[in-house]
């Protein structure tokens, strides 16, 4: 089920709607999210960083599971976290702090694997490239930096290299409001928006500015067309501008160079944009508390959802697993964790504890069955694996017996089912053959 989730900086909870039917799902309570501070971790649960008054020094990150409106897990990082993302498997959560540091947590254990000083001012947005090897971060000082996650964990390499980042783009003069990256891993383009009223297109392979587009208003959100022909830029004047990436633009545009059109509904400022999985529907969140779903091809509004009176600052389109699927998920790791440990992973830790981690801080690739694609190998730190192993060992005495019994029961039931299916198939087969033969006979007669 493809759902739209949206949150607001005022406490209106996280709204959740089915994108195709428009039916509202559960509303998750007590969330005041930061801009770019809402993420869905591996389709398993929702996570959001919270706005807090500046008096408290630590930040807040909350977890919600899909089927409960209450906050399930609360964690308190060392400083307020603004942007928050997770990789598609849901192994990691990456957050950008108000001091400019970037935090890297492992979800399964909640450990803070790495914290590094990335920017001189607060980070405002984060984006993972499509192969999830590069992290792009934007900050209040107008700087955009590209990090290789590989390098970030390579301490020796970091010392050798002259700078820890791959690229640092500082052409924006004001706060960076959004960054997205296209397809193609390290050869992709990235598009960044800033409060200096420009959007800039960069090449990751060459590390240079390809294009700078001036807009009539400040752009707060950017979304790339799946074909990368155009990108959509949500502006503070309430329009969503369409800017060309590939096409030659005619000089006689009303908005300016490279801008080929706009989606407009006379709303207040557009704060966030997201594309649906099929790349046709564009979802926009606005200052006036509504979420609009546009058909990007016809440029018409398809649906409007309403979250609250206050502004919306996060919109995501995610695939939410159906509950029936949920139970029969074949992933051994997931089923294991669901059955024996609490549904959600432990809270994120505050500091990097460096005492015992040095020894076993390596990552382990879980051996896969040969049929599965090598690229999909889930990465887990050895710490998590040892924990899981010890859990297995502990529970082997009592729980395993039960488990085996249950599995045997399952097996028996399945065998019965198989038998039943076989019979049905034989019946059907006989019926079909009879039918065909009968027809033939009538025809020959």
């Amino acid at each position, binding site marked *: 089920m493809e759902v739209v989730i949206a949150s607001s900086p005022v406490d209106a909870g996280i709204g959740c709607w089915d994108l195709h039917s428009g039916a509202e799902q559960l509303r998750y309570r007590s969330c005041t999210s930061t801009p770019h501070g809402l993420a869905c971790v591996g389709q398993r649960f929702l996570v959001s960083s919270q706005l807090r008054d500046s008096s408290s020094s630590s930040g807040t990150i909350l977890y919600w599971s899909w089927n409960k409106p209450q906050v399930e897990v609360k964690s308190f990082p060392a400083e307020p976290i603004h942007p928050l993302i997770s990789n598609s498997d849901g192994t990691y959560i990456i957050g950008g702090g108000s001091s400019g540091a970037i935090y890297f947590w492992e979800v399964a254990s909640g450990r803070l694997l790495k914290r590094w000083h990335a920017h*001189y001012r607060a980070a405002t947005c984060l984006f993972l490239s499509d192969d999830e090897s590069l992290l792009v971060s934007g900050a209040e000082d107008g700087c955009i930096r590209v990090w290789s996650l590989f390098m970030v964990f390579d301490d020796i390499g970091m010392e050798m290299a002259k700078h820890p980042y791959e690229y640092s783009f500082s052409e924006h003069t004001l706060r960076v409001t959004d960054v997205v990256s296209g397809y193609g891993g390290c050869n992709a383009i990235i598009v960044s928006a800033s409060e200096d009223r420009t959007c800039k297109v960069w090449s990751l392979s060459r590390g240079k*500015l*390809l294009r700078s587009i001036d807009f009539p208003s400040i752009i707060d959100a950017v979304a790339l067309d799946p074909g990368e022909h155009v990108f959509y830029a949500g502006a503070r004047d309430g329009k969503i501008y369409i800017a060309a*990436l590939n096409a030659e633009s005619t000089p006689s545009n009303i908005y300016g160079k490279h801008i080929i059109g706009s989606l407009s509904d006379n709303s207040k400022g557009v704060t966030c944009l997201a594309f649906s999985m099929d790349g046709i529907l564009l979802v926009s969140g606005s200052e006036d508390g509504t979420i609009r779903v546009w058909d990007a091809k016809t440029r018409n509004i398809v649906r409007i959802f309403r979250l609250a009176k206050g502004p919306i600052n996060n919109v995501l389109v995610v695939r939410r697993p159906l509950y029936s699927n949920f139970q029969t998920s074949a992933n051994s790791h997931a089923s294991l964790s669901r059955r024996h440990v609490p549904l959600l992973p432990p809270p994120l830790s505050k500091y990097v504890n460096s005492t015992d981690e040095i020894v076993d801080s390596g990552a382990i690739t879980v051996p896969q069955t040969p049929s599965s694609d090598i690229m999909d190998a889930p990465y887990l730190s050895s710490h998590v694996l040892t924990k899981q192993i010890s859990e297995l060992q502990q529970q082997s005495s009592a729980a395993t017996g039960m488990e085996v019994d249950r599995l045997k029961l399952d097996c028996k039931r399945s065998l019965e089912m198989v038998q039943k299916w076989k019979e049905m198939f034989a019946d059907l087969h006989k019926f079909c053959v009879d039918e065909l033969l009968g027809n033939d006979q009538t025809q020959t007669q």
Partner: protein
Amino acid sequence: MARSKPSSSKKQPKRGVDFKKIKRKIGRKLPPPKNATNTEIKSKAIILPEQSVASERAGLAVSKKGLTLKELLQQTSHHNAKVRRDALTGIRDLVLKYPAELTLHKLAIIEKLRERISDEDKVVRETLYQLLKLVIFPALKKDVPGSLISLMMAYIFNGMTHLATDIRLMAFKFFDLVVQHYPSSFFMYAEKVLQNYEDILRKNHIYLQDRSKLKNALVGLVRCLSLLPCNRRTVDPSYGKNTETQGSLHAYELEVPKEHTDFSSIIKRLEDILPILVNCFQDFIPLVHPMSSLDAQSFDCMLYLLRSIDLSVKFFLYGIDKHQTDFGVTKPTYNEKDMPVWGEIATPVFLRKFLEVFPLNQLHNTSGKDEDKFFILNIEITEIFLHSNEWIFTSAILMERFLEFIENLLSGKIRFNSRSGKALQEKHLTSLLPFIPRLVSLVANTWKSRLLQAFTMAFKDCKPESTLNLAFLSAIEEMLLPSKRQGILLLDASEPEILDHQITWIRELPVLLVRLGDTLSSLSKVILHLLLRLGQYAPMNSSLAWEYDIMQHTLGEFYSMCLDDGSILYGPFMKLPKDCQELSVCCLYYFSSLDSLLLRSLVYCCLCDNLEPSVLFRIIDVLHSAYKIGHLQLVDLISFFVTLVARWKVLPGRLYTHVENAKKISNRETFKAITGAVCSCLRQMGDDALIFQIVQRVILDEIPLNPPIDNLCGMLRLLVILDSRPTKLSEQSIIILSNSISEYLIDAASYIPENGDEVTDSNQISICQYYLVPCFFLFDRSDKLLNLVLDLMGSSIGEDNSSLACNHDTQHTLDLSSRIVAVVSILLYMHQDIKIRRRLSSCKGEITRILQKMRLQLIDPCWEQ
């Protein structure tokens, strides 16, 4: 004989002569017989131009002497030197006259001319050189004559190995010429050429006498070496870079390898040539010491030698540097096996020896001119030293000497004597300044402070319009901010002394900016960029950030200044080009708390007519963003906005559109846009009720000043946007507002289209709505306000009734009548609006009172007259 004639004539008739006998004298020519057939053949010439090519030259390209190209080319290999020379000058004339000939026959011409490269005659060679330099190469510049170059090169190499020294040196000159025009050709023949240079320099003692020739050869070497890649210290590329105007992003790009990748052979050659250059230079040193002054030729030679050494050192460094930086990102240019060749073992030894000669000529005083020369040489040596200091560990004494020299240079203790000295000094200082940051970061503490002291002094003394400023600024940027490449701070700002210097520089920047005015906008741009970077990168809560915040006091002058007598003096901000303005506006964002004084000087700029609206909108944007991240007080921002709306000068202009009024209308449109921008900012601020209270307070302070109708309208709009129903306005403010609104309505009434007028201008209607709608909103939300306003309108009609009973002032009556008309039209217009009609029905009393007053006025005796 004479007698015989008549007799014979007598006889003849008698004899009846048939044929007359004619006697002829021997030797006399016979007249032609009368009946002779004329066998003479007469012919006329038929002129066929096509056939006359062989002999006629009228239609052909010829030189002054009437020779064709072919003949001239033939003559170039004449055994007589004079003929050869003439032929070359002839070719020159011809090509100049008929440029097409050259392009047609370039191959033939070059093929013939190249033979003259090693001509025995000096004059011929010189003529050829001039011919190539002035005529042929410039003309052929467009089409790439790769084959032509290779044609030439064969003979040039031949010349380079010629026995006659003259020819040899001249060949280098020719090569220089080729490289000058086709720089890429150096890389094709680099190895061979360098080999030849090496040979010739090895035998330098032969040429010591003929220094001008040697100089020529060295010029060529310098030119070649300057083509080698090196670490160029460029100013931050983002300053001047304009974004490319590519059509599409993913377009195929023709990528030509820009560098000749095979440097290994060049490296080897350079390794050999470097010691020879050093030796050669040392041969000149004895010339320095005698009392005799240094002649120009040998000075030039020394200078060029130094330059060559400098360039080759730079090239070596580049290689080493490249090896280190290429960490996986780009492929290393050099193979592993080149690594040991990189001269780290071999080169420094003699370089160290060479550097020992520094400083030249401290022993005796000679004339000023000479001192300058030595000074230049010293600077060159210093440059080499600075280039190489990363990989040579020099002795402390030598280091001291250099540092002292640099310090003296910076502090101006060493000066040029000659007239052009000032410019020269600046030029050389510019070449040394880029090294200062690195040097400062490396040397010992005592020297650090001395150098910084000298640097700061020099920066302070530097005149604003001087070109040195650019170099200073980039050095300062390097020392203040984490460098772009390494990402680390070069200087430790925690040391109080360094911090002191840094603070001095920062404080100097706005002063420099103001002093510059709008004279050098490019320099202003660099300064603003530096300020912006400082704002962006200064670590939070550090003393640098603190200093940046303090800077806003001095920066106010940059925008505008309020003089004592109330007039406003606009700073350079108003006159700078738009990109500088935008940069300076962006700087505002990074002040951690914007000062209200700076805001005031900013608002003066905003209110000035000359400011472009787009910049004004940027200011609004940036201030709003600054507020969002807590860099600006809410009250300050609101009073900024309200002041802007209340004081912005809308040019008065009736809107009955005439062409000449077009500008005035657009001005009003701008004001509308400003109001709109301010409204949207206010709405995004959050708590409406709180903001409304503040806005209300500020606006009520402004209203008694009787702002023009447009500004009042703008302010009412601000109130309406934030207000809700029922109104949140306080009693007191309703009373104040009602006063001004009644006046405002009467003014606005003049825009109400008259009923009788059929062709009502749509523009006028929209204007009228623009003025009246905010009032209607207020009335809709507050009955009390409506009552009060109606009361006031009524009293404005009737107020004069008693006091000026029968004043026969026509002006007054006219005024009164127009006022009545206005009130009536307002009432009618309000009546048309459904919502307001409903409201009006609740205040019948006031309306009747107004009508009564009108009636009273009408039956007034004054009217009857």
